[in-house]
């Protein structure tokens, strides 16, 4: 589904942040992306999310080389990717329900066609009682779950999550992990960037370890 070949990236004239990355993210796969702070995890997620282009190498996303994709086609490709931002990026004037429904709304869907799905997902992530609450009132963990629900709502083919359990307690982290696994069983490829070793220990999954700009993969 995603193929990186000798990908390198540098900011301006600085040193290469990522070097010679060659790997695949197969369909329906599940992997953790880990490594020390500053290793380039966020940059790699940006590359996967099409919000950055490499300074060298080739990236193929959904069988298309990203350097050849016109700007106006990017939204259509992004719709196939769900992303959980580290800082959540919820809109403060919209309720939890409206934030989660946002990806469907921007696709032009009628509210009546998705209301039941959004409510069901909100219940699933434990926010069934918080549907009409605005983000400033939500706790960090609740915001995290709302951000995850927003990324999942349109059943993306690829889910990218940056530290998705960083703001929740261990039981909720396990619950969220099981949610990602369930999604993966339904066919979504999942990449979770995390520092949380205990989280990774709960699942037998591929580990992509970034260190000094290089990537080691343990299947």
């Amino acid at each position, binding site marked *: 589904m995603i193929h990186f070949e000798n990908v390198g990236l540098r900011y301006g004239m600085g040193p290469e942040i990522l070097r010679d990355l060659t790997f695949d993210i197969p369909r329906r796969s599940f992997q953790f992306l880990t490594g020390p702070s500053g290793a380039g995890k966020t940059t790699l997620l940006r590359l996967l999310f099409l919000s950055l282009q490499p300074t060298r190498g080739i990236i193929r996303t959904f069988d298309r080389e990203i350097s050849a994709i016109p700007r106006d086609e990017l939204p259509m490709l992004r*719709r196939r990717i769900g992303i959980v931002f580290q800082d959540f*990026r919820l809109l403060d004037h919209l309720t939890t329900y409206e934030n989660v429904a946002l990806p469907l709304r921007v696709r032009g869907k009628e509210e009546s066609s998705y209301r039941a799905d959004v409510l069901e997902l909100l219940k699933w992530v434990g926010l069934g009682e918080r549907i009409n609450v605005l983000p400033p009132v939500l706790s960090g963990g609740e915001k995290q779950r709302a951000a995850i629900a927003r990324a999942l709502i349109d059943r993306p083919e690829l889910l990218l999550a940056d530290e998705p359990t960083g703001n929740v307690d261990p039981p909720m982290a396990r619950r969220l992990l099981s949610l990602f696994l369930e999604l993966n069983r339904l066919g979504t490829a999942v990449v979770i960037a995390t520092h949380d070793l205990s989280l990774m220990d709960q699942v037998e999954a591929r580990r992509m370890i970034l260190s000094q700009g290089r990537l080691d993969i343990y299947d």
Partner: protein
Amino acid sequence: MTDAPRETTQEAQPARRPEMKVRPTAPIVPPANVSGNALMLVIAIMAFLACLTFGAVSMVRATAASWQSQISREITIQIKPDDDLDMEKALTEARDLALTFSGTRDGTIVDKAATARLLEPWLGEGLNIDELPVPRLVIVTIDEQAPPDFSAMRAALAEKIPTAFLDDHRTWVDRLVAMARTTAFIGTGVLVLVFSAMVLTVIFATRGALSGNRHIVEVLHFVGAEASFVASEFQKHFLKISLKGSVAGGFLAALFFAVAGFWQGRSIATPQSDQATALFGTFSMGATGYLGIAGTIVVIALLTTLTARFTVMRTIHEIDQIRSDPSRTDQLPDP
């Protein structure tokens, strides 16, 4: 966590809790905020000033045009008395001669009584015209668009009535035309300046109000919204703001002219009203004035909407520019 999942307890309960109601979906762009209200106020003030200037300039132009047309609509034939001249006959001949020229419409001989009235301020009442060698006048109305040949008329008059003198008011007309043109030019200049200030203020105020919403543009863009969708959401929002502001400003300007016109109508023939009328003309806007106000409102609404569209499109373009230029990614929030 206090908000732990509750499905199991819910299932254990005999009766399900009623479904929570979802509030009516809020607009993607927040309907009211401080910058939006400030923008509306700026638009209202600029619309008021622009409409006021438009109305004032129309009034001044109309007044200048009326001065010009009133004086250039007529010419005067003056016949000086002479011992051998039959004045009444000469007056009739002069009028008939003038009317033979194409471009003349009507000729009126100023009779003795009217002549006496004209001289009354200098010579007093009860004047007997026949006792004094007073010149007599023929007033000829002409077609302003196709005036007669004045030099030919002057030559013909001189040949037939040597004491006749044709005054086409050219000196006065030229001076008034120059003054009217200058007044209209200055008025148009002021209008252009006020409109330019309005355009720039509206553009910058809209961009200022939009800058506070950049995070919304980014989130929409990253959840897969097309640029045209994001732009249309912001366009709708800013169209509402600009319509509210410009309609309020335009309405106040129209109200100002209506009240001023009403005051002028009520205080007619008073020194203040006469002075104002002489300087500015009548405070009546007419259909053109109200159309101008409506036009100004439409221009402001379009301007705000287009500025919102271009600014949003440029923001999205910048986000994509950052994508293709890794050296700029420090400006992009972390995903």
